[in-house]
């Protein structure tokens, strides 16, 4: 970095409320000409996109992507697997293209610790990765203490299927094995959580499956909320496609969740209880464990950020993107993680060059399938607002009631294909 660049870079960091920036860390700035090192933590939709775009925008950045698994298993699409539309292998995303085409170093390991004072990422194997910037995209963790009876041990018997992986298939198999005329109970989480329309898409595609194989079966959604994403569109779709099969029980009807008995597959509410043949509990959520352990979360459990660059409010060298960050009014989705990753990547490239980043425009667009040829969507366009010190929506909307759902289903399939390439190369 040239002297001028360095000064602007530091000013930039300082302007973001860099309370943890000590004179010592200023002195530790790198000599001119050394590569600017970025460590991306988490190879999900957020992290993969960030790593890829960092290299696209500024090829001379030194980019390392650390991900604990060899192969990422996508959550988007997993409700379709539960509904029997695709095999589970369809959800796998490999890192081969990123590794081959992009010049990113990909390390398969667990990040054990973020040593912020020394700006080093410490891996499980003991390796230390020094950084100029980190992009942290660890996804969500569950609040195992929130609902009595549903802790981590209980989740091994009763699946949440809310992280990519084997639980998706478990839930699918339980659905296939359910007794004739049985009841599937889905317990939806309180806000905020990853994929706001996800529980309702899941109910829809489970109904699609059951309608063919087990048509007298019923699906009950127990909800600690009083409204949900794309509600009118879902209710209309359920009426048209699966009349009488899906019932939504909002908190206003039977009260809050008191406890969950996984042995008897029973959900106890303030004013009622429901026994399930197949039980799916989606617990309350918070930012991924590493974010919390590294002191990057606030009392909400999520990571506060400056939405201009997705820089942590707690650390001027760490960008937090995706589900883990708090960026209202954007929802927590793969689409949002992808668009946030591009903003963070551009800000890092700018910082490395001592330029100032432009104000971001971000897009979210989430499809939900109700049947293979029936989809709906919700959209938002967001911009940084100086007066709000955060994002505001410049447009939001849903599929119009009279729109062609088959056309949306075709767009949704195209999105799935393109999006995988935009994130994973």
């Amino acid at each position, binding site marked *: 970095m040239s002297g001028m660049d360095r000064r602007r870079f530091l000013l930039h960091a300082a302007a973001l409320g860099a309370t943890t920036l000590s004179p010592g860390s200023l002195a530790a700035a790198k000599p001119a000409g050394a590569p600017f090192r970025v460590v991306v933590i988490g190879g999900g939709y957020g992290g993969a996109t960030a790593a890829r*775009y960092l290299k*696209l*925008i500024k*090829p001379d950045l030194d980019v390392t992507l650390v991900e604990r698994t060899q192969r990422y298993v996508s959550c988007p699409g997993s409700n379709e697997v539960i509904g029997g539309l695709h095999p589970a292998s369809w959800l796998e995303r490999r890192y081969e293209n990123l590794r081959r*085409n992009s010049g990113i170093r990909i390390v398969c390991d667990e990040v054990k610790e973020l040593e912020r004072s020394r700006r080093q990422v410490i891996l499980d194997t003991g390796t230390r990765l020094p950084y100029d910037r980190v992009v942290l995209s660890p996804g969500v963790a569950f609040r195992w203490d929130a609902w009595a009876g549903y802790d981590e041990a209980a989740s091994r018997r009763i699946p949440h299927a809310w992280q990519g992986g084997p639980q998706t298939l478990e839930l699918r198999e339980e659905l296939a094995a359910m007794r004739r005329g049985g009841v599937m109970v889905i317990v939806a989480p309180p806000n905020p959580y990853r994929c706001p329309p996800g529980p309702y898409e899941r109910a829809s595609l489970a109904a699609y499956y059951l309608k063919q194989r087990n048509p007298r079966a019923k699906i009950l959604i127990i909800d600690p909320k009083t409204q949900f994403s794309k509600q009118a569109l879902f209710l209309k779709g359920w009426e048209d496609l699966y009349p009488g099969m899906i019932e939504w029980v909002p908190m206003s009807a039977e009260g809050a969740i008191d406890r969950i008995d996984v042995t008897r597959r029973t959900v106890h509410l303030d004013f009622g209880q429901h026994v399930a043949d197949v039980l799916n509990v989606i617990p309350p959520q918070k930012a991924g464990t590493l974010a919390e352990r590294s002191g990057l979360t606030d009392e909400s459990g999520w990571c506060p950020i400056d939405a201009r660059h997705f820089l942590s409010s707690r650390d001027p060298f760490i960008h937090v993107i995706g589900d883990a960050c708090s960026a209202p009014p954007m929802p927590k989705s793969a*689409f949002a993680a*992808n*668009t946030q990753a*591009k*903003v963070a990547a*551009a800000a890092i490239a700018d910082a490395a060059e001592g330029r100032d*980043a*432009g*104000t*971001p*425009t*971000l*897009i979210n*667009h989430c499809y939900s399938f109700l049947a293979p040829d029936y989809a709906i*969507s919700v*959209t*938002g*366009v*967001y*911009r940084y607002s100086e007066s709000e010190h955060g994002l505001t*929506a*410049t*447009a*939001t*909307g*849903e*599929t*119009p009631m009279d*729109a*062609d759902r088959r*056309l*949306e289903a075709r*767009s949704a399939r*195209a*999105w799935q294909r*393109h*999006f995988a*390439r*935009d994130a994973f*190369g």
Partner: protein
Amino acid sequence: MERSLWQVIPLLVTTTLSAAAEKELPRAEISVRACLACHLLTGKPGDGPPALTMPESRFVAAMGAFRSGQRRGSVMNRIAAGFTEEEIRDMARFLAHSGTRGK
């Protein structure tokens, strides 16, 4: 030979750096990056709506028609509504300058 996304994006990026003196374009570039989640730049049939490879004037006309509701496409109406006319013109100009196609 097909032009892969891989070849086009760096092109996009380099050209804008040189156009960075034009004040609105970095912002247009950020917006265009968001579009890439759905629209590929290959211009190949089957690679989705060709919005990002169409000539500049057609892009402005199409986005304008979605924005006003004159053209109905369900998804794009909602997205176009989030951008001002000026931003749409900037995005079109950015795309034209970046060599993804036409003027």
